[in-house]
C-alpha cells in the first residue's frame, strides 16, 4: 500500500480526533507515532489494515464509516486543499466530474507514479441515475469514494443522493471484491459552488 494512503489515515485521525487519538491509534496498530510515514515509499498492506482497524476502535466507529469519513475529509479537510483541487480538475460541473471518474486511477498515477487506485466504471441511466462500479483489491476504496462523492457534490453546489453503501462484507471492509454504488443527481445548481480556479494561489519561494 502506498505511503500516501497511510499518511492520509494519520492526517485524518490527527485532524478529526486530535493528536492524542492518533497516538492511541499508532500504539494499537503497533507503529511509532513519531516516525513520519514516507509518502513516496510503498509500505506493506498489513500496516494500512492495522491502522484502519485501530482507527475504527479508537474512534468507536465501524470501519465503513471511518473510511467514508476519510473520503469526506480528503475533500473538505483542513490540510487537504491540494487533494480537493486535484479532484476538481476532473470537470467543471459535478456531472463532468462523474464522467472523469474512470480517469481517476490514471490521473493519480500521473500525479504520483506508483499510486495504484482501483478501476472505476461509470454507468448512466435515466433521470440522473448513475451507477459506479469499483473493482478493487481492497473493498475499502468503495467507502472512501462514497465520502469523496458526497463532499465533492457539496463542493460543486450539487444536490446528489447516494444510495446507502453496501453493508460491510463478511470478511471485513478490507476484503477484495467489487463494489457498486448508486447515485441520483437531483439539482446541479442547488447551492453556490465553492470557488475553483485552474491555477492555485501563487507560491512564495
Amino acid at each position: 500500500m502506498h505511503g500516501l494512503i497511510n499518511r492520509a489515515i494519520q492526517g485524518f485521525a490527527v485532524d478529526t480526533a486530535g493528536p492524542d487519538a492518533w497516538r492511541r491509534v499508532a500504539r494499537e496498530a503497533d507503529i511509532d507515532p513519531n516516525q513520519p510515514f514516507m509518502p513516496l515509499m510503498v509500505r506493506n498492506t498489513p500496516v494500512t489494515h492495522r491502522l484502519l482497524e485501530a482507527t475504527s476502535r479508537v474512534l468507536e466507529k465501524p470501519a465503513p464509516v471511518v473510511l467514508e469519513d476519510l473520503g469526506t475529509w480528503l475533500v473538505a479537510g483542513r490540510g487537504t486543499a491540494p487533494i480537493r483541487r486535484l479532484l476538481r480538475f476532473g470537470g467543471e460541473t459535478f456531472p463532468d466530474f462523474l464522467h472523469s471518474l474512470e480517469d481517476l486511477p490514471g490521473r493519480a498515477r500521473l500525479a504520483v507514479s506508483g499510486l495504484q487506485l482501483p478501476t472505476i466504471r461509470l454507468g448512466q441511466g435515466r433521470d440522473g441515475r448513475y451507477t459506479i462500479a469499483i473493482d478493487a483489491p481492497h473493498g475499502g476504496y468503495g467507502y472512501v469514494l462514497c465520502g469523496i462523492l458526497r463532499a465533492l457534490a457539496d463542493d460543486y453546489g450539487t444536490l446528489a443522493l447516494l444510495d446507502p453503501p453496501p453493508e460491510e462484507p463478511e470478511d471485513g471492509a478490507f476484503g477484495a471484491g467489487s463494489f457498486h454504488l448508486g447515485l441520483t443527481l437531483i439539482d446541479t445548481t442547488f447551492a453556490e459552488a465553492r470557488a475553483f480556479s485552474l491555477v492555485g494561489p501563487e507560491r512564495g519561494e
Partner: protein
Amino acid sequence: MTASGQSDLRKARSAPPLGLAPEALERLMPMHLVVGADGTIEQAGRTMTRLRAGLAGQNLFEAFDLRRPAGACSVSDLVAGEGRLRLGFREFPRTAFKATAVPLPEGGGALVNLSFGISIVDAVRQYDLSAGDFAETDLAIEMLYLVEAKHAVMSDSERLTAQIYGAQQAAEEKAATDALTGLRNRRAFDSALQALVAGGRPFAVFQMDLDHFKAVNDTHGHAAGDDVLLRVAAILSGQIRTGDIAARLGGDEFCLLLPGTVDPGRLSALGETLIARIEEPIMAGGVTCHVSASIGVAVSRGTDADPASLLSRADAALYASKHAGRGRCTFAEEEG
C-alpha cells in the same frame, strides 16, 4: 481588382473559411484568428477576445510582436514554409504564444491557431481562464493538473526532507555529545583532532585527569561523582573560546583542543586558572567535595602529522604532572 470586387471578398471572408460554421470553428479553435491579406484581424476566437477585447479590426502586426519567423511583416511571411509562429502581445501582459498559420483558400488571408505553450500557467492566472476557455481536445487542463500535482508532491517532499534533515542533525549531535556533561565525546574529539592535524595549523592539546576523584565516588557515591564531573565540565566550557573544543573522554578524563593558541604563557595561565577553579570546593549531593586536576599540554606547530604521537606526548606530560605531586600543569617536550 475593382472596389466592389474587394468588398465582395470581405463579405466572403466574414463567412468562415473552409465552409465551417463560425460556432464550429469556435468550438474547435477558441484561440484562432482569421487574418485578411492586409494583416487585418477579421475574426478572433472567443478565448482570444477574452485576452484582448477588440482584437478583431486591429492589424495583426500592430497587436502582436512576431518573433518567428523573425522580421515577418506580411501575411505571406506568416504562411511561408510550415507556418510555425512564435508571437506575443505588444502590450502588457506580453503573453507569449505558439501558433500555426495556414493560407486561406481564397483572398490571400490566413487562419492562425494559437496556443499558450509553456506560458499557460501565467496566462491562466492573469486572465482567470477556466476549462471552458480551452478546446475539449486541448491538453491544457491536464497540463495544469500536472503542475498542481507537482507542486503538491514537491511541497510534501520538501517538508519531509526538512524533517529528516532535522532528525539527522539531532542524531549527529547526540552521537557527538557526552551524555552526562554535554561536552563533546571521544568520537567527536577524535574527529576534531584529525581535522586540526589535517589543517596543518598550530594548536594545543590539554589532557586532564581529576585528582582525588575516586575518593569522591567511593565516599559519597556516584551521584556526587556525577555532580563533580558536571561542575568540572561547566568550568571547562566557561574558560574556552568559540572554536575551542572541550571533551570528556570517559571517567574523569577530559581534553581540550585549542586551535591557534600555542603561546606557552597563555597556555600555562589557562592551565593554572582551570586548576584553581577546579580546586574550589564543589557542592555535590549535599556534601562539599575537594578535587584537583593534573594537566599535560602538548603543542602542535602544524607539522605533526600524527595525532597519536601528539596525544602520547600530552599523556606523558600529564603523567609528569601527577608524578610531581598533582594539581599542576606540565608542558610536553616539543617534538624533534
